[in-house]
Structures are given as C-alpha cells and as structure tokens.
C-alpha cells in the first residue's frame, strides 16, 4: 500500500539527527515492547510490517518507533485470536491499581529463543534470473492495495541491475511465492531530476517489480 511509511523523497521533516537521537532506545519499556513484538510476531516480516503500515497515518507519524512495535504486537495477537484488547485494558487497570505483574520462567524456551535469533541463514541463489547484472530495467508503475516493498519514489524509474542477491518470498503475496531479488542502481537525476546533486541510489527489488527497459 502507498502509505505514509513509504518516506523516500518526502520533504519537510526537518533535521536528520538531533540531540538524543543517537541512542537506540530511551526507556526500558521500549526494549520490552520490542521483544514482545519480536517473540510473539507473526513469523513473517511482511505480515509484521504490513500491520504497522495499516496504522492511521497521523498516528504513524505521531508515534514513537517502539510505540508502533507495541501496537503491532498487540494488534497481531488480537487478529490471531490469542488475546483481546479488553484483556490488555483489564491488565492496565490492575497494574495501575498496584497489582504486581506476574512473572514466569522457562529457561529451556528462553535459551532456544536466543539460539533461534542468532541462527544464520541466507537467501538461496537464483539459478535462472530473468535479468542479468548490467541489464537495463524499469520499475513498473503500480498502486498496490496490500503490502509491497517497492517504494513509491522508484516507480517508473530506469536503472541498471547491479547484483542478483538471491531468491526471496514476494512481500506482495506471501513467503511461499519465491522469486529473484535484484539490486538495482539508479542515477539521482532519474529519480529527482536536476533538483539535487549527483549520487547513486541502490534498492533491492523483486522480479515482478521490474520490466526490461528497451528504450
């Protein structure tokens, strides 16, 4: 979906860094919200991101980063039927009234969770990619209603295939649909005209986002 999360090229947001922005987190609850989202997640990064992208755009911009993860964690668990918003609200009331939070321990599960997060995997190589390194391609015009990883600012732009990193699940469908991903190189003038200085932008794009540039 062409949501407000798709920020590339937007203007008016102010300075890129500011005092305090060097730190990854600023409070313990942010780390706990991060971990809750990570360990209860839907198992697909595409589903995870799409939940956040469906936040109301005003709230998306108005939320802190880990507020969005907190929202994702609760929303995904509600949608899967594991919990209800009312149950979370009930615990809010109990904690606010001074009731201590329950604690639990399951050392084997904790250890296997950490092992899983440290496990190294990688994309499988693409044996017969449609495009080769050096091919000229153009990003398709599209307006997808669901999740996509094709940023707006690249639609319609011409670029050159720089690398073929491998096969990956297609975000717009699900992880079961696998196709080659290409690192495509774009000249800044192709994206922004003469309004910016010269530089190169690279992005990783699934095969279905691209068409041959025959022009």
């Amino acid at each position: 979906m062409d949501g407000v999360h798709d920020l590339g090229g937007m203007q008016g947001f102010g300075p890129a860094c500011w005092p305090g922005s060097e730190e990854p987190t600023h409070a313990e609850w942010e780390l706990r919200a991060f971990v809750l989202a990570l360990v209860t997640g839907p198992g697909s990064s595409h589903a995870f991101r799409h939940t956040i992208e469906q936040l109301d755009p005003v709230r998306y911009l108005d939320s802190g980063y880990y507020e969005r993860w907190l929202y994702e964690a609760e929303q995904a668990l509600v949608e899967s039927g594991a919990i209800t918003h009312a149950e979370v609200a009930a615990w809010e009331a109990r904690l606010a009234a001074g009731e201590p939070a329950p604690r639990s321990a399951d050392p084997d599960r904790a250890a296997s969770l950490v092992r899983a997060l440290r496990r190294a995997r990688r994309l499988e190589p693409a044996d017969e990619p449609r495009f080769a390194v050096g091919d000229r391609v153009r990003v398709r015009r599209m307006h997808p209603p669901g999740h996509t990883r094709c940023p707006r600012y690249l639609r319609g732009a011409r670029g050159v295939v720089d690398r073929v990193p491998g096969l990956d699940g297609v975000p717009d469908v699900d992880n079961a649909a696998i196709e080659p991903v290409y690192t495509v190189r774009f000249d800044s003038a192709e994206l922004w005209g003469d309004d910016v200085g010269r530089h190169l932008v690279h992005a990783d794009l699934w095969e279905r986002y691209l068409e041959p540039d025959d022009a």
Partner: protein
Amino acid sequence: MHEHGHDHLHEHEHEHDGGFHTPRPASEAELRTRALEALLVEKGLVSTDAIDAVIDLYVNDVGPQNGARVVARAWADPVFRERLLADGSTAIHEMGYGGEEGHTMMVVANEPDVHNVIVCTLCSCYPWPVLGLPPTWYKSAPYRARVVAEPRAVLAEFGLDLPDSTEIRVWDSTAEVRYLVLPMRPDGSDGMSEEELAGLVTRDSMIGTGLPMAPAPA
C-alpha cells in the same frame, strides 16, 4: 541542495521537543507494554525470563562492537577483505555474527572517491548482528525521507562534509539484504593490532554517516 541550512534547522527545533519524535507521555505506552506482558505471561504465551534473555542479547551481545571486529579484520587482512566484499554473509557468519536481520549481508567499501551510506526508507531494516539496534534517527522520518534525495546535505548535518568529487552511493534496504559500510582504514594506523583497529571503528562509520576515529598520536 544546500537550502536546508541553519534557518531550516532552527525552524524545526521546537518540533523535536513536542512533535512526532517525542512519543505520547511515556507512561501511557509503558503501562500498555507492562499490561501486554502481564497478559502474555498469565496466558503462558511468553515467559519473563525469555523476554529478559532477548533484551540481554540485544543490549550486551549484539552491537556495533561486532561490526567493528569485522571491519578491523578487513583492514588487517587483505584476503579476508576480498572474501568479505565478495560474499559478506559467509565471511560475517564465520565470525559468529549471524541471526535475525543479518541473514544475507552485503558489505560496501568506501574508496578515496566513493562514499557509501545505508538507509531503509520503508521501515528500519538494519544489520542487527553486526550493528545492534539502530539509533533513533535511523528509524525516524527525516533521515529515511531525505538521505535518498539529498545525501550530501544529510551527511553534512552529521558533520561529514564530502568533496563534490566524491561519488555517494545510497543503499535502500528494501528486501532482506542487509548492508554494512566498510570504511577506509584511517591514516596513521599502520602497525596497529586488529583489536586496536577495532577501537577506531564507530557505529556511524559502518552506517556511512560518519568516519572512523583517527589514531591517537604516538
């Protein structure tokens, strides 16, 4: 491209006190987080020690100190450098730095006239196993919006003024490839051990918004 000067910066300062960078009162999100955790623990869907263990992983074990060791090895060992640039995943995984958000790694090398910088315009993709969790600015709207369009102006705000002759290469992490910048080895670091070299590597130099530290004069 330099019209985003200091006036612009001051004009926006107030927004960073009460605008979108500052979440709603922390207590609200904090209470909701505690309530969600309490509910999940009560239902047996997570255990408290698992949450603590994962926090410990990302606070203490996984962070830019890992990436610094990769960079230092590449500076010290030309054969490793070649392998790292040809197949970043294998070279980095061999050093024990694999896992979530770092499966397929691409290392991009700075050169005398080439400077690389990484971003995720769509969310916050970042190579956790080698850099840990991203700084707040990396996950925020201004950096994500601007660095693909005006990298020179953005880098200048980080104190990095690159000559016009330097080619800037921006890498937008739109798929599952995660990028790491291999900065250039600083002058005056000859003869330093790999461990000493790792001490010069900053997090921002591996994102591309900074440079490594200069060695202390002998």
